[in-house]
């Protein structure tokens, strides 16, 4: 992040402004996505993003943190994640040390001692508490569908009140609520109670022209011809009914791989050699070799 890209730089008064600001970070949103980001910023509502893998859900959070000038705090969800890994934890060994030290020093007041035991310095902030305490941060809760559904209940309080309640300390409330971005790959249906509190947006694959723009922006060294060739080949792969249709991430990888091999346009030999960058299943690779690449050769 460059130090001068702070919130003052951008006037985010309309979806178009948000789109323009995002574009300066190298993220090119379509109308829906920029409206979603704009509303999330204005309404202080979490943004719930769903879509195929590799369409840019996670990178949107990164781009948003750049335009708001806040810190990006990421919470990767997994099965079995619980409050002590997502919200906060007490540093028990340090508490014991403190207790022992206080005893040797001859502490007499039991109340004081107990109070000092639950001091803020013994509290370990995990991502959600960090986001609450850090002003203007962007909290990315990645792949919420991987966490079990009990975990969603933890999130409800945070998302609704922007507050975390710690029994020994009290409620810690965010002065400047974080912008929350949740992503899901739909391996499991997320509970309605959580979805209701969010703005829902389905992130689709970009259209051809936008994908060319993305390739040109992210990889400024590649030729225009190569960008267009890759974008059109990838677009055809998405229509080809594959096990894993390539996302933007894959087309970026592919274009980069081709560029490193010195390609100025998409030729059949280099395309076949680098197919592993864009297709991740053997069945898909065979199918594409027989169709898209065969046409390319002819």
């Amino acid at each position, binding site marked *: 992040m460059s130090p001068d890209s702070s919130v003052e730089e951008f006037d985010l008064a309309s979806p178009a402004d948000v789109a323009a600001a995002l574009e300066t970070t190298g993220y090119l949103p379509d*109308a829906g996505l920029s409206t979603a980001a704009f*509303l999330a910023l204005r309404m202080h509502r979490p943004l719930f993003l769903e879509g195929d893998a590799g369409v840019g859900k996670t990178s949107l959070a990164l781009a948003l943190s750049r335009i708001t000038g806040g810190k990006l705090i990421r919470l990767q969800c997994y099965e079995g994640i619980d409050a002590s890994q997502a919200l906060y934890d007490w540093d028990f060994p340090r508490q014991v040390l403190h207790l*022992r030290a206080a005893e040797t020093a001859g502490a007499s007041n039991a109340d004081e001692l107990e109070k000092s035991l639950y001091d803020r310095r013994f509290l370990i902030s995990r991502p959600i508490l960090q986001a609450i305490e850090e002003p203007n941060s962007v909290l990315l809760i990645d792949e919420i569908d991987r966490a079990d559904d009990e975990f969603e209940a933890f999130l409800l309080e945070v998302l609704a009140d922007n507050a975390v309640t710690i029994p020994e300390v009290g409620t810690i409330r965010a002065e400047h609520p974080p912008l929350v971005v949740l992503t899901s790959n739909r391996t499991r249906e997320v509970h309605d109670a959580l979805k209701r509190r969010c*703005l829902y947006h389905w992130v689709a694959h970009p259209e051809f022209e936008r994908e060319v723009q993305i390739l040109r922006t992210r990889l400024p060294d590649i030729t225009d011809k190569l960008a267009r060739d890759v974008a059109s080949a990838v677009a055809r792969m998405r229509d080809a009914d594959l096990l894993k249709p390539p996302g933007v991430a894959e087309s970026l990888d592919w274009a980069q791989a081709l560029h490193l091999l010195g390609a100025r346009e998409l030729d059949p030999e280099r395309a076949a050699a680098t197919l592993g960058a864009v297709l991740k299943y053997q069945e898909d690779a065979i199918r594409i070799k027989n169709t898209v690449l065969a046409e390319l050769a002819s």
Partner: protein
Amino acid sequence: MQFNYTPVNLPEGERRDAVQVMLGFARTLRHAGVPASQDRVHAMLTALSELDITQPDDVYWAGRMTLCSDPEDLERYDTGFALYFGGHQAHQVPVTQSPALPRNSALDRDDADVAAGEEEEDQPDFTVQASRHEVLRSKDVVTLTPLEREQLRRLFALLAPRTSGRRSRRYGPASRGAIDRSRSVRRMLRSGGEPDTLLRRRRRTTPRRLVLLIDVSGSMSSYADLLLRFAHAATRATPARTEVFTLGTRLTRITRELRIRDPDRALTAAGSAVPDWSGGTRLGDTLRAFLDRWGQRGVARGAVVVLCSDGWERGETTELSQQLARLARLAHKFIWVNPHKGKDGFAPLTAGMVAALPYVDELVAGHSFKSLEELVRVIADA
């Protein structure tokens, strides 16, 4: 409910009109099956007050982001939007033709008979009743009379299919295992920092996900009711870890409908959600739809997958065997339930069955209640 909705650029009269228009839009969407609840509508109005209500695009996105919560809603939303803002207001938008569940309707007609039948039995003889139940259990459901069917329905409350456990990422207290540092230290804190007994922890086990894929094509229609009731019993046993889909000419997810507690209401709901009762089968295509949209993303990974079908597949089975191979690679156990297996002289000869055999871990009959009890055992051992 008060809406503090204030679009700045509209005069008083038009402002109220705008709210009316948007409320009407929400009503239309509810008819179309989009869950436009009151708080969501409120969110839509708040969103609109941040945007420009005179711009169709802004109205479209504001509504879509606040009222929808599922990719399947998006299509309905688009239809509703086009209908409502395209000039004429839709009174009722039929999204899917929803015929009643065929087995249900057949039964409902006989409900009077059932009631009458019960009244005739003044003093039920319990031994007779018990043995009658035994016969009922092993009878093929096709041969049941409506009365017997009604009696059988009640037995489904006894079924509780549960999958076996796998080690989870979570730890739980245990008497043996690794030392649980944080719990041990917390106990030390309680006794004023004096070392106390060491507490231990171990990984807990969680039941595997159970995925039921039920063929609802014409050739399976006599078993659809039985299998759906089984699916309901499974959903009731572990609601968060059971997924149910129907396969016909297309794929339909009915997990949500089956979560309704009352079996009859749940089945009616499922019946109206499925658009392709007793149609043809495109087993290969629908399996692929399942794997693309759900299975590969995680639903089938490490799960116990049960496919209920007679394996009737018209034409080529290459697609089917490819998809079954994919499914078998993803799933922990792949169980095939074929109602015809319970019949004498059964041989897995239908094209689909032949294609499936290399990938099937267990082949179970599913024609009677007894065979479903057997299925419960197979699922538990998987």
